[in-house]
């Protein structure tokens, strides 16, 4: 499965055939052209960063922070070694785009990282790859070998005098290591726990040195931005939301998988490309940006376009672009129970509100789902989310609280029904009808 559909694709062009990931194919598609141009024409670093800024490229990992701005935070006169780190610790439930990028086009990431290194003056880089995707890690190592051999990374790249060493680092699968400072701790060989910020990684990062961390998809987009020009890239999306984005569609659709769309494409179009809701059922809700994004009911999401600003206005987040579709057979209490369990399990345990709060929330939702809810539980849940949000070391606390808030906001009646009747508003036989799990069991 490479890519199931695309509109005006940029990132996924040429993703076909088993050899598309090879260096030869990538170069044939114009790969490493941007890096070569920068090095041969000695384009100043500031100009590269300016170009990225102009393109409106925003971080594809979830937070959507403007990439060019992030690069400009790196101290220019720091001479004692800086780092570039790629975050491929793709652990957010519903997200599966970065692994496909590394599987199908690893050299775009390598080129993007090399360009970033040039722009911020880094000499070393790491790609931190999620612990549960071993074959992708192996592929990236192979791609690195190819790039090293061809002289695209290493000492004195293309005879320019600029050097950049890049290494792959395999994680162990902790969700929290996708948080950039926990990821740095993990690379350093320590327990993956977020650091308190400030200082931010741009001033004190990996091994205490200034470090820029971007998502895989962000790095992969960099060569294309430079090749097509910032303005063209920006125009491919919409203002403040430059370019295209990969969307990982999962859940109750006919064709779950990755899709590349220009930012600003209506959700309805994406749903249609994904084959529509499975079994012709009615759309009930959608989590538009990975499991930590608040859920949106059908009537709201159907009016949205897929970009940072519109989804944000609708009360959710574009996040990593993981679109989880739920049809009318879904019990929302049960869905939240599973999500809450995930955040409870993945809390690193460092700071109090997250360590204690995620477990408490899960236990309450679990109780409600199992017919032991109490009338005061919904108020209690709301109050707990308020006590977690904004009070933790990293964003995992917020990520755990936001789904609870979203589910309660839009599907409060289902929770209330559960509490009152000790059972589901969606009858069990309807839930079973929509479940492949139960079908398999029968």
């Amino acid at each position: 499965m490479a890519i199931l559909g695309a509109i005006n694709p940029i990132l996924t062009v040429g993703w076909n055939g088993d050899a598309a990931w090879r260096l030869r194919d990538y170069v044939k598609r114009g790969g490493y052209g941007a890096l070569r141009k920068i090095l041969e024409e000695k384009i100043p670093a500031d100009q590269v960063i300016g170009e990225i800024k102009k393109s409106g490229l925003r971080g594809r990992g979830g937070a959507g922070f403007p990439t060019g701005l992030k690069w400009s935070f790196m101290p220019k006169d720091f001479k004692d070694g800086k780092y570039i780190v790629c975050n491929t610790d793709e652990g957010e439930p519903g997200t599966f785009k970065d692994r496909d990028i590394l599987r199908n086009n690893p050299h775009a990431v390598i080129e993007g990282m090399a360009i970033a290194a040039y722009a911020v003056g880094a000499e070393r880089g790491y790609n931190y790859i999620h612990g549960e995707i071993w074959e992708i890690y192996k592929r990236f190592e192979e791609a690195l070998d190819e790039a090293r051999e061809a002289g695209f990374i290493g000492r004195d790249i293309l005879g320019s005098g600029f050097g950049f060493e890049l290494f792959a680092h395999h994680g162990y699968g902790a969700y929290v290591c996708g948080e950039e400072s926990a990821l740095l701790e993990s690379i350093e060989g320590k327990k993956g726990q977020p650091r308190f910020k400030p200082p931010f990684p741009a001033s004190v990062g990996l091994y205490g040195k200034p470090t820029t961390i971007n998502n895989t998809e962000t790095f992969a987009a960099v060569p294309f931005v430079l090749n097509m020009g910032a303005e063209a890239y920006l125009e491919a999306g919409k203002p403040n939301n430059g370019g295209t984005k990969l969307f990982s569609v999962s859940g109750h659709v006919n064709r779950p998988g990755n899709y590349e769309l220009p930012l600003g494409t209506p959700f309805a179009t994406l749903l249609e490309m994904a084959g529509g809701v499975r079994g012709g059922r009615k759309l009930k809700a959608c989590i538009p940006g990975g499991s930590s994004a608040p859920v949106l009911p059908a009537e709201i999401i159907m009016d949205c376009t897929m970009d940072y600003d519109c989804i944000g206005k609708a009360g959710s987040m574009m996040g990593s672009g993981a679109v989880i579709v739920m049809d009318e057979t879904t019990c929302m209490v049960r869905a939240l129970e599973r999500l809450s369990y995930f955040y409870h399990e993945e809390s690193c345990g460092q700071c109090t509100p997250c360590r204690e709060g995620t477990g408490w929330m899960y236990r309450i939702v679990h109780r409600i789902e199992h017919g032991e809810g109490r009338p005061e539980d919904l108020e209690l849940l709301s109050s707990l989310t308020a006590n977690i949000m904004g009070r933790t070391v990293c964003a995992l606390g917020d990520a755990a609280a936001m789904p609870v808030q979203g589910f309660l906001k839009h599907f409060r009646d289902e929770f209330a029904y559960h509490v009152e009747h000790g059972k589901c508003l969606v009858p069990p036989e309807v839930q079973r009808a929509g479940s492949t799990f139960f079908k398999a069991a029968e």
Partner: protein
Amino acid sequence: MLDIEIDGKQVQVPPGSTIMDAARALGAYIPHFCYHKKLSIAANCRMCLVQVEKAPKPLPACATPAANGMKVFTHSELAVKAQKGVMEFLLINHPLDCPICDQGGECQLQDLSVGYGGTASRYREAKHVVVAKDVGPLISMREMSRCIHCTRCVRFGQEIAGVMELGMANRNVHSEILTFVGRSVDSELSGNMIDLCPVGALTSKPFRYSARSWELSRRGSVSPHDSLGTNLIVQVKNGRVMRVLPRENEEINECWISDKDRFSYEALNSAERLQKPMVRVDGALREVEWNVALDYVAHALKDVAGKHGAGSLAALASPHSTAEELYLLRKLMRAMGSGNVDFRPRRSDFSSDGKRAGIPWLGLRIAEIQNLSAALVVGGFLRKDHPLFAQRLRQLARKAGKVSVVSVTGDESLIDLHARISVAPRNLARALAGVLKAAATRLGAAVPAGLETVEPCAQAQAIAESLTTGGKKAIFLGNVAEQVDQAGQLHALAADLSRLTGASLGFIGEAANSVGGYVAGALPGGEGLDGLNAREMFARPRKAYLLLGVEPEFDCANPREAVAAIKQADFVAVMTPFRDGAAMDYADALLPLAAFTETSGTYVNTEGRVQSVSGVCRPPGEARPGWKVLRVLGNTLALPGFDHESSEAVRDEFIPAGAPFAENLDNGVDLPLAPLPAASAGGLERIADVPIHFADALARRARALQKTRDAAEPVARIHPETLDRLGVAAGERVRVRQGPGEAVLTARADALVPPDCVRVAAAHATTASLGGMFGPIDVERA
């Protein structure tokens, strides 16, 4: 300076300060658990969340840098709501059973929950339970469900103690504080984790459930153990010492105490305390009244002096005695006409006596250590001899100060060392000479005569480099440097090195009154009298011995020689707090002595600081403070000048009233460099450490300390190559011999011991039959 406003009050703080620093400067209290002024910032408890103007979210005061013009509200609605929210989370899995918790009454969580906790819990699920752990004799981890994961204990280990004994494993609510598999928590500073723990998770094993904190009175005291003069709070209930805590003194011990300081009090309450005077009648010791005992001692001493001359009397005191005791002992002996007094039982080389410019001391104030650019410690088991002094050097090294060690083993110092040289004791002087020669060469100065054959090694060059560059430097001579045969030579070499490099020179000192004994003048000779020192008084046996708090079988440089001399004497009087020692065999009179919490007295620490303390409880039975016993003994002997009404009156005779520091502190020495000994002796050489919990009579009887790893029975540690050459396998029993003395020990391979050396600990019953701490030794398979 930054101007910042907290709750409407202005305060100025230096750049780099946090909101918490500013609040502390202002005296405003922000609730917190994980924050501790001596530890790194973790910002994990979130209790110190405060509102900052223009910040959308509450921010942790401990980790948020103060900025100019910042306005902070610690009690605004937003701040208090955040703090209360955190408190609720902290309490959901914390047992709410304060009445049965050992920490109850002195628990930060309990205190703050009064202000920030709810009246009832909204949490109605089951509480998380954490399995109890056994981590050795000092710290109890039976109630880890109480842990709030502040990681103070973890950071203490990493940053202060230098060894990570505890860590936080697992994630989410399953996070728990663990040791490495099967390891105990009993490094020499571990006990401080009990104080740091804000809840009842880490508690003192010996103290647990023996008293409530509010039943205890808090009384100030000073540690009688190492030379730091650690300030203590002794907690007493019904006249009994229940526990010992640190008394904060930034100049000396900061807020820490060593485990020995903390747990040695158990010996005070031991069943083996001597409670009534005893005299030997017809070969058996009998309890008698004080007047009988004192008469007996006085008569016996006069008798011996009359028969054999006053020079046949000798007195030896422990350097852990109070300065008043040491002073009166010397006064008593001199008044009787004998100059045979000493308080340095573990010393074997006295060549610097009479050649010193003043009283040997640290050479600088303890608090100045943190400002050094480089420090060199010569000879010693730094970490175990002086735990908190080592801690100061550890912090210095963390701040990029260059700390080097020249010593007789490669023991882990837990300090990030700049350079280290480990040599056999006989080569200690040669190694130091190497540093001296390298420094002279670097500075273009003349190489002192006698060092022509010395070849400075790379490490010596590195040490010389650290001592000849940078700012303030210091050279410290440790315990071993004072105990070895070439102590005077090491002193002279170090003095030369100090003159050459401008580094200060100092002695760390072995015991609480290692400086105080000099101040009190408890030294041989003087006032026209000849005197035998601590070695000579046994090498040339006397007819009568008066022993003050010292146990020669453990405390003397050559215990076999000392005990032999004592056993042949006509009369031996022992002033001791205990009735279980070898003294029961050789003493003709035993006078029960008050221990350190039971007597007033003075300790002059290594930096010359005079610290007088009061007794905090009564001695058991008829035991009496040493100064009173000696004063009355003086009266009984009808000697002049023994009419003191208080220990202060005794002290005023030798320390000017109110002096904060002793006078005449000077480490200069007028000793020519003796020729260096040959590099190899051709045989095996003994290295004797004094294990931390064997070092004095009190520690030897502290039950919990005696169960720690540091109190393990001595073994013969030998370099693996030497072991091979001897044809002995590690783990085999070997017979070690020094002259006629021998002991059977287990051989252990230890690459940290220099080749051709055998490390056998001193101050233990199994090795008391051996000879000198350093010198030739034979090993054969037993």
